[in-house]
Every structure is written in structure tokens, then in C-alpha cells.
């Protein structure tokens, strides 16, 4: 239902779009305003387990505005039944010689897609990471930099901008070969480049321990009560003077909560789920211990349980 100008009624009338015939019809006089409209939705549904030669899709993938030509890709296909060497012969060589200006971009996008799949990120974050990478690539100064670290940092920034931050260690685990330091440096570089280009508009909030609570808790398989208690505890702990990284505080809080509950998780499990070293969790536990009665909510654990906590 939309409004358009009908030439018969000579005024704006309500217009109905008939999907089955592809007609735009005026609802007052019945005049067909536009016919043969092209349906741009996808023709076939694609499922993950379907593959093989019988792919009925005729139009290729969705247009990607980031690529130079919108992602048009016409390739010379291997004829059915021919061996692999056909492609490396003359036709195949013609295919590959035309230098694709976007080859680096496409490769980078593919790497970002692989990394985000490994982390289980939504397409929004992946697309944002692609945008960030394109913006950085436009300024040629990023040539000499470590590509892996740059892509990982793009993903890191994209996660942050969508308010779903991932720790640098998590990004490290899916980025091949980039160390925490390199990703950190690449991130600073990208932020500076984006600031130069768009006049200081890089919006990135600081990370809080609470952002990671849900994910760490579900990785460990804690029950709902424990998760809620952990989130409250982390909120309260921000008021105290604890000079530790928020991730370490989160890990220590999880440790306390699990020690108070029935299924006590060993330090090693928490260390693996959060990426924080066991020694760091122990030290953060030492820092948190004096305030533990004020941090843990009353409905979750009573005073005696708190007394039973191991004194560090």
C-alpha cells in the first residue's frame, strides 16, 4: 500500500502492489500504473548441506557496494567431465590474467569472514569490519603493515562499535599469527586513520566487565541464578578501588560465584573460558576478597557461605 499519482484520477491515490502479476494498481479506478515489475528477492533458497553441480541460482551473490564493480563475477567454467588441466590451458589463462583490482580486498573480506565465523559473529559485525577495512585500505599508507593484525583489528573495532566487544585474546585466537601487541598497535593505527579521514568520529565505548559476563558464564555452563548474581557482582565491583583489567575482574568474580555455588569450577576451566591466566585470577581474587561481602548479592549467598570462601 503506497501513494502514487494516478493519471486517470488526476490525484494522489492509494496504490496496491500485486506481487503475483507484478502490477502497481490504483485502488480507486483500477488503472494499472506500472506492470512487469522485476522481483529482486532471491529466486531459490540455499541450504547449507546442498552443494554439488545442481545449483539453480542464476544471478550470483548480492551486490557488494564496497567492491569496485559491485562484485560482478563472470568466470569461465570448467565443462562437465573435463579434467582439471583444461582450466590451466588457454581459456583458463585468459580468465586469470585480467588483473582484478579488488583481488586484495576480496581476499581480505574472505579472511574477515573466516575469522568472524570462527567466533560466531553476526553478519552485521562482519559487514562493519569489511567497511572499516575498506576505509583503511583507501589510504594507501597501510601497505607495509601486518595484514593479519590489521584484519583482526578491523574485526575487533567492529565488535566494539556494535556494543558486543570481544577481548583481544579472543580475537587473537582466531587471527592466524597476530599477537596481542600487534593487534593493539594496528587498532590504534586504524582509529587514527579513521579519525583523520572522517574528522574524529570514531565512537568506541570503553569495555566493562559486564559486557563479557554473559558469554563467559555460558561458556562455563553456569546456571541462570549464578549468571545473574555474577552480573550484579561485577556492577557493584566497579565502585571499589581494584586496579585490574576488567577481564581479570570478571574472571575473579566468576571464580567466587562458582565457589559459592554447588558446582565449583576449577581455576583451569575459568582460565580457558576467559583467556585470563590462572595466576592473574588468583591475584585478582586476592584483590577482591576484602570487598566480597559488599559485591556478592545477598539473595545469592549468605554470610556463612562467604566465610567458607578460601582466604587467599
Amino acid at each position: 500500500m503506497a501513494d502514487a499519482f494516478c493519471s486517470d484520477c488526476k490525484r494522489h491515490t492509494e496504490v496496491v502492489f500485486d506481487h503475483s502479476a507484478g502490477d502497481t494498481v490504483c485502488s480507486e479506478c483500477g488503472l494499472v500504473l506500472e506492470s512487469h515489475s522485476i522481483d529482486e528477492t532471491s529466486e531459490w533458497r540455499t541450504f547449507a548441506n546442498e552443494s554439488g553441480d545442481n545449483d539453480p541460482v542464476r544471478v550470483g551473490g548480492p551486490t557488494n557496494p564496497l567492491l569496485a564493480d559491485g562484485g560482478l563475477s563472470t568466470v569461465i567454467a570448467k565443462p562437465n567431465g573435463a579434467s582439471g588441466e583444461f582450466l590451466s590451458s588457454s581459456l583458463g589463462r585468459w580468465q586469470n590474467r585480467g588483473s582484478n583490482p579488488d583481488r586484495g580486498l576480496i581476499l581480505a573480506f574472505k579472511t574477515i569472514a573466516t575469522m568472524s565465523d570462527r567466533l560466531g559473529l553476526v553478519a552485521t559485525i562482519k559487514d562493519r569490519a569489511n567497511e572499516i577495512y575498506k576505509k583503511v585500505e583507501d589510504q594507501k599508507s597501510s601497505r607495509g603493515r601486518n595484514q593479519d593484525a590489521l584484519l583482526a583489528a578491523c574485526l575487533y573495532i567492529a565488535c566494539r562499535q556494535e556494543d558486543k566487544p570481544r577481548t583481544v585474546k579472543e580475537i587473537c585466537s582466531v587471527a592466524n599469527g597476530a599477537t596481542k601487541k600487534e593487534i593493539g598497535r594496528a587498532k590504534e593505527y586504524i582509529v587514527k586513520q579513521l579519525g583523520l579521514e572522517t574528522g574524529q568520529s570514531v565512537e568506541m565505548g570503553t569495555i566493562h566487565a559486564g559486557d563479557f559476563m554473559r558469554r563467559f558464564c555460558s561458556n562455563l555452563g553456569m546456571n541462570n541464578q549464578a549468571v545473574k548474581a555474577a552480573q550484579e557482582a561485577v556492577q557493584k565491583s566497579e565502585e571499589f578501588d581494584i586496579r585490574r583489567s576488567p577481564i581479570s575482574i570478571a574472571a575473579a568474580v566468576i571464580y567466587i560465584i562458582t565457589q559459592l555455588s554447588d558446582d565449583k569450577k576449577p581455576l583451569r576451566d575459568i582460565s580457558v573460558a576467559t583467556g585470563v591466566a590462572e595466576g592473574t585470577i588468583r591475584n585478582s581474587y586476592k584483590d577482591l576478597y576484602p570487598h566480597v561481602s559488599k559485591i556478592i548479592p545477598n539473595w545469592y549467598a549468605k554470610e556463612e557461605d562467604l566465610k567458607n570462601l578460601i582466604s587467599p
Partner: protein
Amino acid sequence: MADTDQVMEPSIDNPFISSPALHPRPTLQNVVSTVNFGCTLDLKAIVRHARNTEYNPKRFAAAMMRIREPKTTALIFSSGKIVCTGAKTEKQSLTAARKYARIIQKLGFDITFNDFKIQNIVASCDVGCPLSLVRMSTFHGEFLVYEPELFPGLIYRMKKPKVAILVFPSGKIVIAGAQKTDEIFEAFKNIYPVLMSFRKTK
């Protein structure tokens, strides 16, 4: 709203805060300066004849010379330029640079003392109480960078004077990048009320 019984809390509106007698004073930690001696130097000869000099050309292209008073280190390059680090005040840096010039002169090179310039002054200070960096970073401005995962301190780049201030949650701060001592004190005067408004009580 009579607060007569309460102790006067330092705040931006409190007139006492502007009195310099009340707030702490940054102490200079390091002054880095450069001088041009105006002639090419033979580093191998210098290292042979001077005491307290090391030269490892495979590792770094300059010779490192140290003097005891003022306690400084100089990187001497074969182009004749030197970098003098470790002095505690601007004056000491100048004295030290002149001493290095004297030493090189005595070794037989024709020295002129050109373009002495202080490149960097670093100072540290303690505001006395823990600070909440998270709250400070939400107040933001494009000047702040706070990445607790990467570095525990908050980096504040002040535009005027152009210095970088590292703020740590313990309340200790480091001011670096100044070219004159006055810039350090001016920067501290600017940043002190801001820091005090983000104190962590308890």
C-alpha cells in the same frame, strides 16, 4: 544546602583549588635534548680514547657516553649530532651537553655548539587519591584513549600545551612531551581539577 560542617571538598568551583600552594607539584624526571657539533666524528677514535663510552656498530650506529655529573647519557652519531638524555632539569641538560662537547673537543675534534634544543621533558606527579578512569573515559572528548586490556593507564593528549598525560588508577600521573618546564606546570594546572572530579571515594 548549608555545608558549613563539612570539610571543603576540592571541586572545580572551589576557589582554593587554584591556589598552587595546595595542590601537589610535578617533579621532572627526564630531559632529552639534541645538539649539533657541526663536524663529522670518528666514533672508533672516540671510543678508544674516552672513558665510559660504548660503541657497537652492529647493534646501533651511535656511541653511548656517560658522565657522572650531571648523571646523563649521550648518544653520539658520526654526523656530529648528539642526543643527551637523563638530565633532571633543562639547565642540567645544557650543562651536560656542554660537558660532552668539551670531552669531544679535547679528543681533537673541531666542535661548535649549534642548535641546542630541548626535545622532551617528562615529569611525574601524584594527585594523592585513586581515580576512576572508567568514568573519566565516558566524559570523553577526542583527547582520551583508555584501553584497560592494552595498557592500565589512560592517555590524555592535551592540545595546548601539546603534551601527553598518562593517568593511572592509583592517582599517579606522568606528563610527557613538553618542550619547556612551564608547559609541564601549565598542563598540570589544567588537568588537576579534572582529575580531582573523578576521584574514587571509598
